[in-house]
């Protein structure tokens, strides 16, 4: 496996200029293209990085943080955001075939979930050539917590980040 070490600055540069692999959330709309083209009616006034790091994907459903504990969220405090984006790439010279799913839940004032379990938001299969960037749009925003899970039949190391946008109101 060809490992590559990059800096956060380099990762940001690649996010901006790299080609984008196609990934579709089931039952949810997916848009492709440059970041500016993603929101033709929605000028974001604020974008936050909710998570960034690497994930060892295997045959188990793992959070991006690596755990298999289903009660743990991947990102918290996501209430203000209209939508989330998951971008990244997988190391290795073989074609990428990673499946992911997004779960969400609401919490009370103390941070306790309103109920057990999660609400499934959508899922996607990411199939790209090696070293190709992918991006998945999660349009169902304003949930308090999300759990983003990935798995791959072939073990892969995925570098990725989750960003969230809070937009101006669509007039």
């Amino acid at each position, binding site marked *: 496996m060809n490992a590559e070490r990059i800096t956060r600055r380099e990762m940001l540069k690649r996010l901006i200029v790299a080609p984008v692999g196609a990934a579709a959330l089931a039952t949810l709309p997916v848009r492709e293209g440059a970041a500016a083209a993603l929101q033709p009616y929605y000028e974001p006034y604020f974008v936050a990085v909710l998570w960034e790091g690497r994930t060892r994907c295997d045959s188990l459903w793992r959070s991006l943080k690596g755990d298999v504990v289903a009660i743990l969220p991947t990102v918290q405090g996501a209430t203000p955001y209209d939508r989330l984006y998951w971008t990244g790439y997988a190391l290795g010279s073989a074609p990428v075939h990673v499946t992911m799913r997004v779960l969400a839940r609401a919490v009370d004032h103390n941070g306790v979930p309103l109920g057990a379990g999660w609400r499934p938001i959508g899922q996607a299969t990411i199939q790209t050539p090696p070293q190709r960037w992918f991006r998945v749009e999660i349009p169902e925003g304003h949930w308090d917590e999300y759990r983003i899970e990935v798995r791959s039949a072939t073990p892969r190391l995925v570098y990725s980040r989750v960003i969230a946008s809070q*937009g101006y109101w669509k007039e």
Partner: protein
Amino acid sequence: MRTQPLTLYVGTLQVEATPKDILNQSEPLAPTFVNAASVRAFYWTGVKGSNAPIAYTIRAGDANGWQWSQSGQIVGNARGWFRVVVKPPAAYDWYRVEVAGAPQALRSKITGVEEVVE
């Protein structure tokens, strides 16, 4: 304008066949939220207590009466999550969130998204 979330309600209501709002008020003219003119969208999420559907009606208006409403059903399994998104066509001061259905506990939260002038 930019947007800002505001938690308007978190609580548990015992749903009954008689319509009442999520604050347990049966009086049909009683508002659930007041001074809500700046809220442009409501995100109502929560967990149902049983398999039975819950009928909901959201009314909007002011002290002169209700001027707009949206109705629907919350369906799903017991302990299943639901989400209702409400985007009223105009700014209203008062809102009433009313539910009715087979007896069950409804644990839910309503987040309003406000417009904020920069």
